[in-house]
């Protein structure tokens, strides 16, 4: 860890006093040189804590830095919607220390060059680890595999591959992708949406769509793809991740697949844990998202599945859009919602305050397991001495009203606007450096220059 690169004012040692570790007993954490140097009672006054900046954390919960498995940072191509800089500021404020940047940029992240660009932008920003996701197929067109191996071998070390936004619907292409990523321990993250069943789809197909006259997005379009994909993953012995599971039926299929020993993981978004298609009655496109908001029985099934481990992780599917893409007719509006700065609060609201989960479970679904799925080695680690100091401090007693105009993301499309939510991020430590202090952005971490020895010494010609 090259902390001599840090400004004196923004680096150094921090003594977090009396935080409830994963919601348990209050202990101190001493952060120094990018790692958790010590964990224990009353570290103040010890030699090790000498000179450390003290952060009084009584009443706060210490968590491993959150890892988002599903983020849209929009750069390159749609810098009017979000940039790596603004999106990762939002991530830090939301308690994240790593995000997986989805591949549907322009150009698409389907080459080593683009994923390295996104990776470099993330390092330059310095707010979180930016882990680029590589496209499964060239241009997200679903026809020809992108150079998955080149992206895996690049400096971005891509392990998650997804055409998210579009389903890899061709069963042969999906089979080949699942088989191929085994060569470098990758995972295919599927956006499960049967395209023919969802042509022109605008919202969940059901009682509300019948009344509103909006074209329906039936649950079966998601469930049929998940059923096919878990069987393909079993057949070829590979690893499948299901993005943004939204229906009770999908939960049942994933539960069945896991019981059969199929190597599948699944994600749920915060908005699918809280909101229902009843909100669409307003025709306000802030509620337009893909997959769409479902019914209350789906919401309850998703919460139960996240609590019992059928669904492994929370992924935000943070999808900022410029306001003109939402200030229009429902059918014209873009799909997607922001989520990085509200995820912790929504999960606390829907999972912890309902008694379905504790903070240890929260750490599992927002940090440990997403880091494992993405093979992010130094994230999602226990809060123990010697571990990387990616730490989030949360005030679970705080209450705040969501105001999109005050967010760090450029997107103003938060479906939670005006709601009062519990839980506030007080501080985020990324590699031992406080990116967020007192609930406000501090300064970014400054990475050392690339160490040549860790780059691929035998980079393929033209690969970059």
């Amino acid at each position: 860890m090259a902390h001599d690169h840090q400004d004196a004012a923004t680096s150094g040692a921090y003594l977090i006093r009396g935080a409830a570790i994963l919601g348990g007993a209050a202990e101190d954490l001493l952060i120094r040189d990018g790692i958790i140097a010590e964990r224990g009672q009353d570290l103040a006054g010890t030699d090790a804590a000498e000179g450390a900046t003290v952060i009084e954390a009584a009443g706060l919960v210490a968590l491993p830095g959150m890892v988002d498995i599903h983020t849209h940072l929009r750069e390159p191509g749609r810098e009017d919607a979000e940039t790596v800089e603004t999106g990762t500021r939002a991530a830090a404020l939301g308690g994240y220390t790593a995000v997986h940047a989805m591949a549907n940029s322009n150009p698409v992240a389907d080459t080593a060059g683009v994923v390295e660009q996104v990776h470099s932008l993330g390092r330059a920003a310095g707010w979180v680890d930016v882990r680029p996701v590589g496209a499964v197929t060239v241009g997200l067109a679903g026809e020809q595999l992108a150079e998955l191996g080149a992206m895996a071998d690049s400096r971005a070390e891509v392990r998650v591959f997804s055409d998210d936004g579009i389903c890899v619907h061709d069963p042969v292409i999906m089979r080949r992708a699942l088989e191929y990523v085994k060569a470098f321990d990758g995972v295919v993250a599927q956006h499960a949406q049967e395209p023919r069943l969802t042509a022109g789809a605008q919202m969940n197909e059901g009682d509300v769509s019948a009344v509103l006259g909006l074209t329906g997005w039936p649950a079966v379009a998601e469930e049929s793809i998940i059923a096919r994909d878990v069987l393909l993953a079993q057949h070829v012995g590979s690893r499948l991740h299901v993005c943004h599971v939204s229906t009770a039926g999908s939960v049942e299929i994933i539960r069945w697949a896991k019981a059969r020993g199929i190597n599948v993981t699944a994600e749920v978004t915060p908005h699918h844990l809280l909101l229902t298609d009843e909100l669409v009655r307003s025709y306000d496109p802030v509620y337009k998202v893909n997959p769409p908001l479902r019914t209350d029985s789906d919401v309850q099934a998703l919460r139960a599945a996240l609590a019992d481990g059928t669904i492994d992780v929370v992924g935000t599917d943070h999808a900022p859009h410029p306001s003109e893409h939402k200030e229009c007719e429902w059918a014209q509006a873009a799909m997607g919602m922001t989520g990085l700065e509200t995820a912790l609060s929504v999960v606390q609201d829907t999972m912890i305050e309902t008694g379905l989960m504790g903070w240890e479970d929260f750490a599992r679904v927002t940090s440990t397991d997403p880091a494992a799925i993405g093979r992010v080695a130094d994230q999602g680690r226990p809060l123990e001495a010697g571990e990387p100091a990616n730490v989030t401090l949360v005030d679970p007693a705080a209450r705040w009203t969501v105001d999109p105009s005050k967010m760090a993301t450029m997107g103003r499309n938060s479906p939670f606007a005006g709601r009062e939510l519990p839980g506030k991020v007080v501080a985020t430590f990324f590699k031992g450096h406080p990116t967020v202090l007192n609930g406000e952005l501090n300064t970014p971490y400054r990475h050392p220059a690339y160490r040549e020895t860790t780059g691929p010494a035998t980079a393929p010609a033209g690969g970059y």
Partner: protein
Amino acid sequence: MKHLLSTEDLSLSNAIRILDTAEEMSAVGDREVKKLPALRGRTVVNLFFEDSTRTRISFEAAAKRLSADVINFAAKGSSVSKGESLKDTAQTLAAMGADAVVIRHWASGAPHRLAATDWIDAAVINAGDGTHEHPTQALLDAFTMRRHWATLNGTSSAGADLRGMRVAIAGDVLHSRVARSNVWLLRTLGAEVTLVAPPTLLPIGVGQWPCSVSYNMDETLEKGVDAVMMLRVQGERMNASFFPTTREYSRRWGFDDNRLRTLDRLGLKDTIIMHPGPMNRGLEISSAAADSHRSTVLAQVRNGVSIRMAALYLLLSGDTREPAATPAAYSTNAAYSTKESH
């Protein structure tokens, strides 16, 4: 009333008020001088994002009979077709001082957007939005049915509802804004509605609607019906496998000459045949049915002007117009979140 967006949320008293006012307005159409000064100096904009000459001229005639100034804004050939947004169009009309906007739009919910945002403060009348609603069509249908029902019962239309009337609505319910608006309004007015359609042309969720559903036209007729409303079938539905052929559709769900004779055989001498137009003669309705003494097609057109006069009058005239709601009350999430528990 501030806007007329849907019949789903139209109260019985407001529905009756519109129907009764339309009765008064229809008398104007019988005069030599078909004009009232009620809306002199008020500006009504017909904002049409979708071609519909029939509906537009009906609203235009209604506004002119009330002495309003009428501006027709067709999206085709205007700045809208050059990419101007609904927001910019609405703000432009607001800046020009439109008092009412009659909007026809291919997108479901577009009139709600105009009403809920602060883009424009005018009264908004939904003249058909996507596959959602067409409230003035349902009101003119109800007006037509109410007159028929009152004549049969030897009573006056004024103040009456449609309790006891049996109405069959047949055809492409899935894509029909007319069917939706009629189902909600006829429920409010107390009629018994049966939807008759192939299963492919009924929305998932129709089971929650306040009506019965049948796949069989002949069974529906045999149970007895006082009005049969045939919906237009779009030719392009055939290519999307909603039904095998137009001939099969016509045989099973169309109102053909055989079914016209069936009404006589069943002794249903007072049953009327309705159609919102434009008709596909020979597909969902035969020429004999469309031109029979049972057909109310032209009466519906005539009544449309009266209903639209009533709607414009009630929304724009001083004593019934409600003050503009504050935009904030519509646009905050708090206002919507109350709906979540429904």
